[in-house]
């Protein structure tokens, strides 16, 4: 099998809610070989597991349809292969939906390789003694409201799926950087024990996994960190060679910026110990990395190293945790803060008299203390928006929070305005456990004919 001397892997989504058109621009003008859509936040799979329970055909990322309609014609025409975790809690269902989209677009029978096995619900249910990483308590403590359990699978499975030749690979839970390392392993035949190359690939994947966050998004600051044409910022790609050389770039003709500053911010993003960034593929050490600008919007990444991967998979366990109720109302002008504080006390008193209790309760003065708490000495703003929120297992109690805040229009301090409707949402929480790898049975299936 002949191998390419360089492969270009683009990032098309960094979250399910990511912007759409930059991915199409990257496919059209980026000269990419692969387009990776990373669409699963920590609790997304748990949420989609609930969708699948209600409708066995659902449970994949709802954004799959719009993304497929947008990029499939270009990707199929140009031979750009798609890798995505949009399969979420139902990768086979997602593959069927995407094949239907391709058919409807007149693209014919498009086979899709599907990675299965991340759903470890049945396994962990039988292991209540597993320790929750967040608080040290046994898994048993959250099993009564258990919703899902998914292991973060690695790049080896993505590579095997690509080895089938299918133009599209869909997965459920796969670690974000692994979605990018998979194509590199597939293209260059990297061994899963070649940690020098896995390190470089993982560093590249981590830099790409949040799309625009490495091209000037989540970065700009007027006068200090200016970003040209941020409204039109483009998505990034990595040029990778068989020896693990990595050079990042972004779609030509787009706004934004890609340089050492943007790359450094993204490299450290969501990292704890920089010598031990644990993925399913390796334990990455970024402390020796050097970033070099090799041209405009081009950055070379050198010096990533890694230790061997751990013998466990991290598993995200989803569970329901009651409801959050919230409400908001505004105060402006003279003594705005004093009236808002008084209103908060009245609402709390009324909730108490109605017999409602909350596991957690919060009062925010938006415009003053809602983001960074309330240290002494912060000046009072002209206007504030009072926000109150409570978490409880009682849906009525959750609704009462917003109900009583809204009542401040007629039953509170003077001059309240603009209360919102009471809001109630159900809480889908997550915690993590480590599961020995050998217990996880993965599987590869192909939907359609190759």
């Amino acid at each position, binding site marked *: 099998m002949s191998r390419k001397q360089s492969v270009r892997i683009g990032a098309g989504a960094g979250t399910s809610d990511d912007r759409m058109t930059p991915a199409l621009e990257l496919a059209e003008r980026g000269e990419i070989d692969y387009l990776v859509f990373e669409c699963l936040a*920590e609790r997304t799979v748990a949420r989609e597991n609930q969708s699948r329970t209600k409708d066995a055909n659902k449970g994949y990322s709802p954004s799959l349809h719009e993304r497929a309609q947008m990029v499939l014609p270009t990707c199929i025409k140009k031979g750009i292969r798609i890798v995505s975790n949009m399969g979420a809690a139902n990768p086979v269902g997602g593959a069927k939906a995407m094949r239907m989209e391709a058919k409807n677009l007149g693209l014919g029978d498009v086979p899709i390789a599907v990675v299965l096995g991340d759903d470890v619900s049945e396994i962990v249910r039988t292991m209540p003694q597993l320790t929750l990483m967040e608080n040290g308590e046994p898994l048993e403590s959250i099993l009564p409201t258990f919703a899902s359990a998914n292991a973060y699978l690695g790049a080896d499975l993505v590579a095997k799926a690509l080895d089938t030749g299918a133009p599209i690979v869909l997965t459920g839970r796969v670690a974000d950087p692994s979605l990018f390392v998979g194509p590199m392993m597939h293209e260059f035949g990297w061994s899963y024990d070649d940690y020098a190359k896995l390190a470089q690939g993982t560093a590249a994947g981590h830099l790409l996994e949040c799309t625009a966050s490495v091209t000037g998004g989540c970065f700009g600051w007027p006068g200090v960190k200016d970003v040209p044409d941020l409204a039109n910022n483009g998505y990034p790609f990595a040029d990778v060679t068989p020896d693990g050389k990595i050079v990042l770039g972004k779609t030509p003709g787009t706004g934004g910026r890609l340089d050492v500053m943007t790359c450094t911010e993204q490299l450290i993003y*969501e*990292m704890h110990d920089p010598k031990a960034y644990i993925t399913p593929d390796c334990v990455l050490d970024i*402390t*020796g990395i050097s970033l070099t600008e090799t041209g405009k919007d081009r950055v070379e990444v050198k*010096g990533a190293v890694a230790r061997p991967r751990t013998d466990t998979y991290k598993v995200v366990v989803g569970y329901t945790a009651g409801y959050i109720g919230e409400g908001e109302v505004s105060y402006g002008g003279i003594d705005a803060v004093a009236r808002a504080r008084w209103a908060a006390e009245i609402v709390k008193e009324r909730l108490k008299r109605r017999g409602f209790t909350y596991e*957690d309760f919060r009062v925010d003065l938006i415009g003053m203390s809602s983001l960074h708490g309330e240290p002494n000495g912060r000046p009072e703003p002209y206007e504030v928006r009072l926000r109150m929120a409570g*978490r409880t297992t009682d849906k009525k109690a959750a609704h009462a929070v917003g109900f009583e805040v809204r009542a401040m229009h007629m039953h509170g301090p003077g001059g309240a305005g603009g209360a919102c409707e009471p809001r109630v949402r159900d809480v*889908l929480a997550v915690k*993590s456990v480590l599961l020995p790898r050998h217990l996880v049975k993965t599987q590869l299936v192909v939907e359609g004919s190759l």
Partner: protein
Amino acid sequence: MSTRVYDLAHSRTGDKGNTSNISVICYDEKNWDFLKEHLTEAVVMKAFAHIAQGPVKRYEIRNLKAFNFVIERALGGGVTISLAQDIHGKSLCNVMLAIELPSVGNEQKQ
């Protein structure tokens, strides 16, 4: 004259569960030693005392002229159950940037 972290560095916040990680990246690497001396775990813990329970752990990344501060129990119990508006704490880097340190001396400022 004091120096703010903002004068010397840029920053981004990330999250995992109830833990926030905040990078501090020097504009000019010559200020890295100054920040190493003055932007200690204790100084950061004090600045976040009304937000997070801690502890704070500082990791040095000299090669990237950066530090990574990992602040435990910082996100209202965790992203998925937090009652905060900014459940991920994405805006917390601005608390870091506002921390005031002794004067670095104008000749070293960026």
